[in-house]
């Protein structure tokens, strides 16, 4: 039962990810992302972490994706304004590296299986979660806030000051 659910959720998550990449419409992509997020919440449930699953649903599925959709609607992003931009330098290295990773992983799992000595970790209750997050892992938690802050400042700086002036007129 769990095995079937795991495969199902994984397929859903990966499919959602591909959908994000392959659709040109921003709204479609946002919906694809939502699918992935929900599937991952399901994974958390399977891992016996109901609180985390709930947070995942509320924060990502609820708030973040809705915000994305709002932004897309507000900015009125149309498909024809989104030009495809390519990674100019060393595309082949990236492609090769990706393929190599795929083969490596396949080889590893075929050779060794996945029976790792993984720690079960704290169970996913609110107490255990809070205990872990705000004590042992409080530093990464704080660091994440710096990360978000930096991203925020950067986003403002890029959109307010560094917009391509010439192209706006065009």
């Amino acid at each position, binding site marked *: 039962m769990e095995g079937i659910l795991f495969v199902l959720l994984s397929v859903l998550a990966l499919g959602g990810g591909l959908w994000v990449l392959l659709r040109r419409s921003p709204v479609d992509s946002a919906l694809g992302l939502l699918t992935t997020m929900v599937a991952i919440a399901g994974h958390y449930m399977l891992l016996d972490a109901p609180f985390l699953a709930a947070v995942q649903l509320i924060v990502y599925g609820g708030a973040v994706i809705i915000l994305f959709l709002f932004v897309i609607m507000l900015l009125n992003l149309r498909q024809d304004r989104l030009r495809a931009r390519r990674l100019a330098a060393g595309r082949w290295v990236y492609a090769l590296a990706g393929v190599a990773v795929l083969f490596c992983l396949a080889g590893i799992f075929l050779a060794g299986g996945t029976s790792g000595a993984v720690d079960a970790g704290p169970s996913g209750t609110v107490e255990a979660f809070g205990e872990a997050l705000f004590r042992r892992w409080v*530093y990464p938690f704080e660091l994440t806030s710096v990360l978000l802050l930096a991203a925020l400042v950067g986003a403002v700086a890029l959109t307010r*000051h560094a917009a391509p002036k010439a192209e706006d007129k065009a």
Partner: protein
Amino acid sequence: MDFSGLNVAALLPELLVSGGGLLVMALHAAFRGRQDRQLVWVSLASVVAALAFCLNPLTVEPGYFGSALSDPMAFAGRITVLAALVLLLPGGVAYARSRNLPQAEYLSLSLFAATGMMALASAGDLIVLFLAVEVLSISLYCLAGLMGERESSRQAALTYFLAGSFASGFLLFGMALLSGSAGTLDIAALGTGLARVSGTGTQWVALGGVVLMIAGLLFKVGAVPFHSWVAEVYSGSPTVVTAFMSTAAKAAAFAGFGRVLLALGSVSEAWVPLVGICAGATMILGNFTALVQGNFKRMLAFSSVAHAGYLLLGLMAVGAAGESLEAVIFYLLPYVLANAALFLVAAKVSQAGSGNYKLDDYKGLARRNPWLAGLLALLLLGLAGMPPLAGFMGKFMVFSAAVRAGHTGLAVLGILTSVVAVFTYLRPVVYAWFHEPEESGALNLDGGLAFVVWVAGAGLLLLGLWPRLWLDLCAGIGV
């Protein structure tokens, strides 16, 4: 709740610098941008406070349950990053002002990036390592795109972002495999964790993780074969940001890289050949590509690829032979000093000349400002590794560590490619001293730039003559 393992003091440098970043934004908002000229002093104050705190032995205890370390590597990494900030921020703000870039955002993003860099240098577990990499990367992506009205800057930001995300993916995936199989997130404990699973099927998972992590880190340090982003990003970004990337970010990345490889010493036979090939290829490709550049900024970009090769060689000796990180720690400081000053000089000379970093701008520089031309020669030759400047001592330590670890062939390769490097670095010197100027008139430095150039030059000479000054300082803090 029990917070005895916290030891907040261990994180004070990071807290001070990120707090400085926050304060800059707050003041920018409070004064509605009218006092932006003063913000650089706020930033510098937080950096200097962090610097002063780093030198304080209070921080010797690791903090946050072992997530924030205070060993010599962490100390050296923090000091190097902060030193780069002290050198770069004043010049950077002047640069930003003259090109109409947002000063407050430049400052706060730089400080956030520095927070990430310091956290990376002192990371005790994989989670912090990854988050630190992300903090510094996100900040740098935005900094790279600050000159957004230029296509090259936008392209640089995008390339950096895509390449960086790719690398982060590798890094994260590798970490998941590695920590899962070793059963720990603690970097220092990875070795024993891996020893426990050796011989079982899990060791293959672990090895896959090691390879993926190393690939991700090679990306971040810009080593061959993952160097393709370097030229575009370094030449497209605003020069002061490039300077920051090639100095502080590189130093921090190498500190983190070194820490990981040190922990993986027990499985060194798995990664030494890999890193060795990359190091050799990086030295060759970096030096020869730098040789043929006609653009000073691109030349420095490729030369920094070449330096990544030498540093990798130093790291290999570390993991494989249980050498100390001394060689790498030492190599980084003069490299950072020289590069920071050179990028700022490049911005100045280019602005006074062609505006696009042509090597020709350096023709006859000695006539226009002999002191600047002399210091330019000193800095370039220091990077090239001419004794008695510190670059020589750095190379000497790296090569001798490599020879001691049994990588004689690579050491010889390194020494031979250094000759190519000397030729590269001599070209601007030849232009500056042996050619007639195309433009007449003195080229005067403002006080800030002169300060940076003199400090860097003096540092190169001092560290070259007394390398123990820096190493003893690092060693005296921890261990």
